[in-house]
Each structure stands twice: as C-alpha cells, then as structure tokens.
C-alpha cells in the first residue's frame, strides 16, 4: 500500500483484518556439480559446485556433499551463470498501456500480471529468470511497473512478484507520447517541448499536493481545527513518492537532447534514481549521464524502426560502459528475450568488452537498475538461487541454455522440453497459434493497442 499521507485515512477505513497468511512462492534445494561457474562478481571458477538451500545460494565450492533429498544437476562440461535479468520487458502482462491520458502514474502493471503467458517459458528457455514488466511508452508518465520472477508453473499472479523489489515507474519521451496524445487526441503533448512541460507540470502538482497534505496533517494536530481534508489523488500520491525517492524512474528515450532534458528535470526535482530505457543516442551524452549517476538500458543493435532512432550505433553499450555509465542490454520483445546472452555478446564484436563486462550487461547491471542487486545478478553466497546453465560459453555463438533455475527450482529443462508447455488452453479454439515466431507480432509491445510499431 502506498501513501504515508494516507496513514490516517486507513485508520478511518475501519478495516476488517482478515489475517490473510502471506503466501510465499515455493523454493527448492539443489546442488549443481562440477560446473564452470561464471560468478560475474568474483571471476570464473572451474569444476565448482553450487549448493542452493531453500532457494538461496548456501555454498560455492569444490566437491560439496549433496545433502539428503537435494536434487543434483551434473554440470560437468557446462557453463553456469547467474540467471539473466531483462530490465525492459512486457511479457506476462494482460495490459501494457493505459494510453488514455498523458500522465497515468496511478496505474500499476502489477495489477495485470498474467502467469499463464507462454512468453514466460520462452524467456526461461533463454536463461532469463527476472524481468521488469514495464508499462508501455504511450504516456509521458506511464504507470508503475512490476519486477517479476519467472516462476512459470505457478498460477497465482502474486507468486510471480519479486518480493520486496523496489517500486519503479515508466516515463516516456519523444515520438510515442506526442503521437498518441498530440497526434491522436490533439492534446498536450504534441511536441518534445510539450513532453517536458507535461512531466514538469505533473511533478510540480505532486509537490504542491505533498505540501497540502503535510499542512493538513500538521494543522489537524492543533486544537480546534475544523478543516476538510485535501482531495485524495492517487496519481499525485505516486508522483510524490517519485519525488521522495521511493520509486526508480525508467524513462523511454532515444535522442540525446531529450535524454539531457530529462536529466535537467531530474536535477530540478531532486530525482536521483533514473534509468534511460532504449537510449539509442545515450552514447552522445555518456559523460553527463555518468556524472549524474544515471543508468542506461539499451538494445544491442536495434534501430531505424522510426525516425527518432536512425542515429544509432551498435557501440552504444560499449561507449556507455567505457564512460562509466552503468548499462544493461534489454529485449523489449518476446522473441529477443530468448537470446539476451547473444545480444550481450555483440558488445564484444562492437566495442571489445571483456567477458565479465558483457555478462554484467544482462545480470548485475540490470539488477542494479531495478534495485535488486543485493538479491540477484551474480553467483554469491546469500543471493537467490537463480541460475542459467549453458552448453558452450553463453557469449559463444554456439551457446545453448540447458537448465534455468529460479529459487533453486528448475523451471526450464531442455531435456524435458515438451512441445506443449502451455499452462492454460482456450477450450474453444481448435489450434492455439500463439504469436511465437511471428516477427510482426513479436516486435516490441511497448505501443500495444496504439499501433504495431514501437
């Protein structure tokens, strides 16, 4: 529940406490043996075992004894890396864009999690264990997003949420919000200037709103106070939490000028945690981003699908990395998500990143962008048992994911990969075609409903 300002309100609500016991997702006990372990945090370890107890990495070492009732995975000759993390995805969601208003900070993709989406399994088959299920980019300020663990097989959407992951929100600059609202509805924002105004205006309103409630709550304590409470506004509640640093901003952006613009906005409003999504021209302002501590989550080599993404380069991730900008590589696609390891490898061809640097782009760096780096993103004792096991090095063109483990439970096993992994079947459709492999449909769903392009 959000809203400190609402603390008093919830007391007024006369809630009936139902004592809903918190349901926790299942965790596994597992021993991975004799693997070539790419820890990402502390180098590579040959012929090493990883013991996962109750879903957490308990020990890393050689010839660890298998406790009773532990599942054992023989990783002899295989590569063991942290589960891949995708900082920009729209899988497992029943709705993506609440595109009816330029600012919809009050909506939350966590309300529309779809645990049955077959794309979750496809992502697992690419070694992915965590995704950032983002709101779309139709609005200058979109909704809050949800960080999900890919526990495919569980039917309760609550059990896919990554417990205690920080709140995040989607902002969007450039052609998408101007096309949807300016072009589509003839309202603000119709230009890049308009986008900036809409964001500044919303944040200013949130600041006023915070003050109104603070004044009210303070005045209330005085004797003989009779005033009416300010109007509750869930949109401004959320933005107030952005201003007070409780929510990480993930901003869809392409051009250097607009990226730099938003940096100024963040500076003016004291927003410190900012991740630029896509950021195709981020390389042009890499030193500025680094100086601010802003982060970037980019494509490896995807561009030219609309005007604002022509000035792009496959060296983007490498330039950002070399300039000290914490960077990740994301998918924004149900298809690309299956080979993020390959996308990361492209930075070795374009930019000569080291193995560790390339692997960080899809593990610890996206974890940091989501504020979950203490839990996942590297193979360290105490972290979640989220592991991807590959035949051949994951950065090799011959890499093949063979096991994907979430919380110590094998969620993808190449040897048991049946050809119908659907959890839910439409009883009235003769053949459920899905959209896998259809390149048109499997493109970014960022602008779903609005149109078929990003």
């Amino acid at each position, binding site marked *: *529940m959000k809203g400190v300002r*609402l603390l008093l*309100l919830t007391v*007024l*609500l*006369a*809630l*009936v*406490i*139902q004592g*809903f*016991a918190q349901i926790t997702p299942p965790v596994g006990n597992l021993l991975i043996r004799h693997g070539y372990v790419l820890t990402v945090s502390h180098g590579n370890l040959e012929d090493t075992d990883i013991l996962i107890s109750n879903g957490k990495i308990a020990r890393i070492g050689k010839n660890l004894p298998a406790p009773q009732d532990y599942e054992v995975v023989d990783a002899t000759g295989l590569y063991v890396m942290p589960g891949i993390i995708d900082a920009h995805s729209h899988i497992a969601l*029943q*709705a993506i*864009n*609440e*595109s*009816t*208003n*330029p*600012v*919809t900070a*009050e*909506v*939350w*993709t966590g*309300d*529309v999690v*779809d645990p049955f989406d077959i794309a979750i399994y496809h992502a697992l088959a690419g070694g992915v264990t965590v995704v950032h299920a983002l709101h779309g980019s139709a609005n200058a300020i979109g*909704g809050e997003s949800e960080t999900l663990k890919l526990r495919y097989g569980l*039917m*309760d*959407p*609550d059990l896919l949420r990554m417990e205690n992951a920080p709140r995040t929100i989607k902002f969007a600059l450039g052609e998408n919000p101007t096309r949807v609202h300016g072009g589509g*509805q003839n*309202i603000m924002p119709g230009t890049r200037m308009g986008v900036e105004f809409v964001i500044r205006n919303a944040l200013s309103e949130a600041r006023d709103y915070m003050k109104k409630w603070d004044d009210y709550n303070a005045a209330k304590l005085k004797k003989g106070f*009779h*005033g*009416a*409470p300010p*109007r*509750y*506004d*869930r*949109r401004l509640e959320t933005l107030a939490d952005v201003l007070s640093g409780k929510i990480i901003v993930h901003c869809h952006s392409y051009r250097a000028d607009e990226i730099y613009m938003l940096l100024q906005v963040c500076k003016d409003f004291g927003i410190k945690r900012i991740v630029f999504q896509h950021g195709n021209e981020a390389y042009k302002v890499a030193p500025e981003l680094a100086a601010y501590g802003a982060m970037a989550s980019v494509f490896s080599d995807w561009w030219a699908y609309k005007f604002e993404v022509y000035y792009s380069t496959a060296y983007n991730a490498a330039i950002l990395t070399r300039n000290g900008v914490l960077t990740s590589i994301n998918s924004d696609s149900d298809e690309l998500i299956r080979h993020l390891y390959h996308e990361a490898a492209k930075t070795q061809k374009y930019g000569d990143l080291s193995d560790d640097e390339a692997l960080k782009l899809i593990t610890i760096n996206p974890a940091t962008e989501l504020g979950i780096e203490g839990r996942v993103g590297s193979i360290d004792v105490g972290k979640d048992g989220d592991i991807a096991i590959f035949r051949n090095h994951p950065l090799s063109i011959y890499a093949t994911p063979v096991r994907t483990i979430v919380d110590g439970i094998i969620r993808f096993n190449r040897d048991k990969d049946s*050809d*119908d992994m*659907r959890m*839910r*079947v*439409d*009883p*009235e*459709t*003769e*053949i*459920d075609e899905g959209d896998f492999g259809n390149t048109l449909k499997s493109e970014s769903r960022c602008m779903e409903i609005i149109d078929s392009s990003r």
Partner: protein
Amino acid sequence: MKSALLSFYPVLIISFVFLEGSALHAQDERYLGPVSNTYAITNATIFQGPGRKILHATIVLRDGLIESVGANVSAPPDAVIIRGDSLFVYPGFIDGLSHAGFVQPAEDRQSHKVPNPGDPPPEFAGITPQRDVRDLYNCTDGLVGSLRAAGFTCAHIAPCGEMLPGYAALMQLSCVPGGNPMLVSRSALFSQFKGAPDRLYPGTTMGVMAKWRQLYLQSSLTASYAREYASNHAGRERPESDRVLESFFPVISRETPVLFATEDMLDVDRALELQLEFGFRMILTNVKSGWIDVEKVKRSPVGVFLSLDLPDEVKTDSTKTFVGMTEEEQTRLQDRRMETVRKYESQAGVFHNAGIRFGFATADTKCNSIHKNLLRIVSAGLDQEAVLAALTIDAATILGISDRLGSLDPGKIANVVACDRPYIDEDAKIKYVFIDGQPSQIERDKQKKKGEVEVEGHWTITTKTPDGKTEGTVTFAKKDDGYKGRISGGNLQAPVEFDSVDLKGDKLVFSYTVSYQGQTMRVEVKVQIKGDSFEGTAYAGDVDQFPISGTKNPDKR
C-alpha cells in the same frame, strides 16, 4: 465484386426486435387478475430443501406465501388444485447474476468524443454507481420470461455497463400488471473489470484497478468528513457533494456488498485483492474459471456465484486437418482442449469439495443451455443435492434472503418449481413455476416424439459476418407435403418469402432472394437441426459464406 456483395450484409443480416402478433394487442386486453390466491399441489414428491424429500405430499400456497407443506396436509377448499401425482416440486431457483429486463438508456449507446479523454465525465467512462437498476427495469423483456421458464423465480438483476454500472436489486421474476417484483432494492453495488469505451480513461484493467482505489479512498475521506460536518456544521467547510462518491458510502460502512462479476480466474484474483485492501463486503459472481482460486476464496469472507455458461463440448468427429501437423499432434491438442472443458465443467465440484458455499449465475448463459449445463456439471462430479442447494438455499443464504426464499417451508415466499421428472434428469421438463404464489408459466405437454424434427414455428437466427454478430427471425409453416417460410426484420422493408424449403431428416435447406440498391442476390442456407436449435452455413451469391445458427422460440399459446 467483393464490395458489392458486402453491401448486402445490412439486408441479409437483420437486426431487429421480434414482435409476436399477440403482443401487439396486449395493451388492448384487460388484465383479469388471478382466479384464486390459493393453490395446492397435491400428492407430489416435494423437495423442501437439501436432504428433505417428502413423498405423496401436498404444498399449499396462499396469498404469495407457503402456508403448509407435508404428507398430511390436505388442500383447502378454496384452493385451485394441481394434481401432482407425477410431479417433483422444488423451491424456485435463484439466479446470482442476470441483466434480464435491464433497459439500457439510449445515451449509453452513443459514442462520446470529449475534449479530454483522460478525464471524461464519469457517465461516459462507465462509472454510474449512482444508478439504480429499479429505474431501468422492464419485466416484459423476453429474457425474464425465458429465465422463468428455466425455473428461476428470483434473480440478482444488475445494470449493464462497464466498471461501475450501478446498484443491483433482487427481483422476483414475475411480470403481472400492478405486481410487486422487488424483493430487495439496492442489494449490491455492481462492478466489473471493464474499461471505458471510446478510448476514454480508464481504458484497461489496470486503469480500472487504479480508478477503483481512487474512488474508494476518496469516498472514504469524503464520508468521514461528511460525518464530522453533520455532527457540527458551525465553522466548518461544506463537504463536496458527489453522486459517484456517495454511492460508495453504503459499501464503505459495510451495509451493502459489492457484486463483482469476475468471469476469469485472474479477475477473481483482482477482486479479492481489492477486497483485501479495503475490507468491504463482496460477492463474486458469474465466475467461469475460478478453480485455481479456491484456496484464496475459501480464506476470504466472500460469497460466490458460479457461471452456468460452459465452453462447448469438443467435437471429436471433426475431419478437419491442419497443414503441417501430424494426426498425433492434433489428437494431443484436442485432448488438452477436452481436459480444459472438463475443468470448466468440474469447477462447481471443486468449490463444493473445498467446502465453499456457492450459487449459480446465468448472466451470459443461453437459457436453453441451463439445464443441459447443470447436467454436465453433475456428470463432472458435483452431487445432485449440491446442485439443488446451489440453485436454492445456498444462493439465498449468500444473498441474505434465506429467511424468505430457498426452501419450501411455511411462511416463506411461495416461489415453487414443479417438474415432470426429478430435475436432474435429462428428460425433465418444468411444468409449473409459481412466483409469489401465482402460476407464472404452465407448460403443456408437447407430445413430441424424441428425435423428431419440428421445423414449424419461429426461429431466432444469429449470423456471424465480417460486420459482426446479428440476429433475425425465420418462420416455417406446413405447405402441402412440405414447408414454406420467410425471413423478416430490420432493413428488409417486408418479410421475404423463401424460394424453396427442403427438409430431409435433420438437414434443412432453404433459399431466398434479396434486392438491395437495385441488385439482387440469392442466399442459400444449409443447416442441421438438433432439437430446438440448428447450425449451418449461409451462402450469399457465389462467393461469401458465413456461419448461421438458430434457436426455436417457445410456442406462444
């Protein structure tokens, strides 16, 4: 050529309101009122409630209430007597959600263009919780009669719409001039996860969730300040008056539950989430795939009504083949579909086994599938007693009306259903339906042989075209050794007679010619009749074809 043919659709596919001839004169007839206010069904098998079956018993209904029930009861001298020697008598069924009789205000159907789609007037965005279904209910709606014919005597009637259509009411499904069908008004605030139309806010489920929380929390604030203000006006700012927010007050004070239509399992989840956040009283209704939520539902203080709409059974005799797919693969896909259909059928059994009390809802169930679907639910494992309990006393208990309805006990409202066989029997037919002690429908014996195809009469047809689903009516009558017929309605200036009607076994073929904007086109319809329904294909001209289905309208005598 294609476009020329498409232009025929408006003619071909008729959307119209069917008016039975007699109905046109109804206003001229004087309603005479019932002959007696006392009825007795004698010597019948009476199911008073779960586990309470009495043989050779009599039930006496007087002035709308049940006067007496039992084996030793005798019919009073002033009663109209119905000899129930072969009848099986049940409490009238209770429907957990229906929109029958709801008359959508005309302005609802208009498309709205507003200057700011992100902040539309609430009524454009499907937010009309201040509405009361009483003001928009018309019992002469055919659906009310069809539900009655299916044994339902009381229903939770909710307005149609999107996110917050308004307040529901518990209605007796009778329709007599000057009658009093209202049982409980403003029984629940109806809600569903439907976004606003016309790309207005809130457009998506996540938008609806956010708007719900916004409205609820703002209403809570407004309500509490309104209380403060009421206690002492002096020196205080006047609270804002907002009909939308005020509609939430009875929900916030827990006087009135929210009736949440949640067909899909994930919608069930979302409704439970809101309930958990705010603690309001809630009834889930029209649940279709809630079997995964059983544990959560069980832990929550909510009532549940399960949908009587089931997916069609998988046809295993299909000879259709799919390119690039082996027979084995096709079989596997088919097996998974059949397994899924079974899950829908066994939902009620799963709830029953989990010890959750539930009723049934008919909202989007075809009336002529209700009995058939209940039988499917029984053969999927729910025992008959539980089905009858769900239709009667359990529904009444969830709705808080078990002191008035749900069992055949003296003093309760005389809602009674009588069948010629035990209700859970394939061939059971409902013979009498009493609502408030008055017979609402008396079915005459049709003397129809099983399997015989009866084409004569009026059929409501539904056609799917690229323009959408549309309805019309066809009528068949005997002519010489064969049949004649016609199609009528909507854009057709006058009914069009069929050029030919040919019935062989259960295969019916008829054709007709339509003119539209100076062009003519021949339409041939080939269907297969199964009892009171048919399915097949309509061929328009040489090129177009589309699926057509029909259901027979009940005989009006």
